[in-house]
């Protein structure tokens, strides 16, 4: 097959990089993750958040078209896993990313079809779980204020991109078609994705802080803080 070098095809793993057994395993892991997410999302979704989840998926799709330049003639774009997890919850967030990745793969030829499971694992499952875990950890350390939700989300954003890049290197070590030394690939992938992760952090910060500013009650990751604030207000009003 001819190597297709469409510059707009971005970040997603194409067909051919990983061998068939590895792709089958990642597809199985992706399927299990989606199954768990379908169950868990029922608890996250209600009348207000279901339409918002649709909007989050759409926004992630749109933003993934916007490659921003990073050093040395390289570009990157938002992955959006941490963003989606903070806005609508990790289970729903994974479903958002899955819808985006399936549409991109089947209709836009962005990310391979045999690599779809790999992309759901790397750009969905790991960015959502890793990004959300770092977000929650940051929330525990940072002051419990609404103004801290967006910075915590930004930390989740950069961590999720680096984690995803490192996980690709591990998958490549297992099932990469062309042999590349592990250390060399790890250094190259993590190096460029730290810079891309800064972009991820900036976009995640801007979007989360915008929604927190107008409707903090709609932001899944702000729920605990909103609850604390309302309790404090109530206590202050009626001692």
């Amino acid at each position: 097959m001819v190597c297709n070098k469409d510059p707009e095809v971005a970040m997603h793993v194409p067909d051919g990089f990983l061998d068939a057994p590895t792709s089958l395993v990642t597809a199985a892991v992706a399927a299990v993750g989606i199954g768990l997410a379908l169950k868990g999302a029922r608890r996250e979704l209600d009348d207000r958040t279901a339409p918002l989840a649709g909007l989050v998926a759409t926004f992630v799709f749109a933003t993934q078209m916007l490659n921003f330049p990073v050093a040395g003639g390289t570009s990157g774009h938002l992955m959006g896993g941490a963003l989606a997890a903070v806005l609508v919850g990790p289970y729903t967030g994974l479903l958002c990313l899955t819808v985006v990745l399936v549409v991109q793969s089947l209709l836009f030829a962005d990310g391979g079809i045999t690599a779809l499971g790999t992309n759901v694992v790397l750009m969905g499952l790991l960015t959502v779980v890793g990004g959300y875990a770092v977000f929650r950890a940051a929330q525990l350390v940072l002051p419990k204020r609404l103004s801290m939700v967006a910075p915590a989300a930004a930390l989740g954003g950069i961590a999720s991109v680096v984690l995803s890049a490192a996980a690709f290197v591990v998958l490549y070590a297992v099932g990469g078609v062309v042999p590349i030394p592990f250390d060399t690939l790890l250094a190259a992938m993590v190096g460029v994705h730290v810079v891309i992760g800064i972009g991820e952090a900036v976009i995640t910060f801007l979007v989360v802080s915008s929604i927190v500013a107008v409707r903090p009650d709609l932001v899944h990751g702000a729920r605990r803080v909103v609850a604390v604030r309302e309790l404090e207000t109530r206590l202050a009003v009626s001692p």
Partner: protein
Amino acid sequence: MRTVSNRTVLVVGLLVALTLAGVVSFYASGSPDGLNRVAVDLGFASAEQASAAEGGPLAGYETVGIDNGRWSGGLAGVLGCLLVLGCSWLLFGAHKRTPALARTKGE
């Protein structure tokens, strides 16, 4: 105290997404992304195989039959947004919940 309704958040958010995909995407960087760059530098880019979806009408974020890059890419982006919105709207059962959306307006 709330001044921004659910509906406003959704409509403004959707307009922003459509603008990004339909207009701003034309100005996105065309440089190879992180993974492609590493694949080229380290010499495994040649392992890439064309996706079976390559012949589709929206493949590569271009609309088949439209030569103007701005319109071709913009239309593909808008159609993609609407498709993602439709799929996720059905998946999350938002179509069953929209009456509630109207009720909580201006709450």
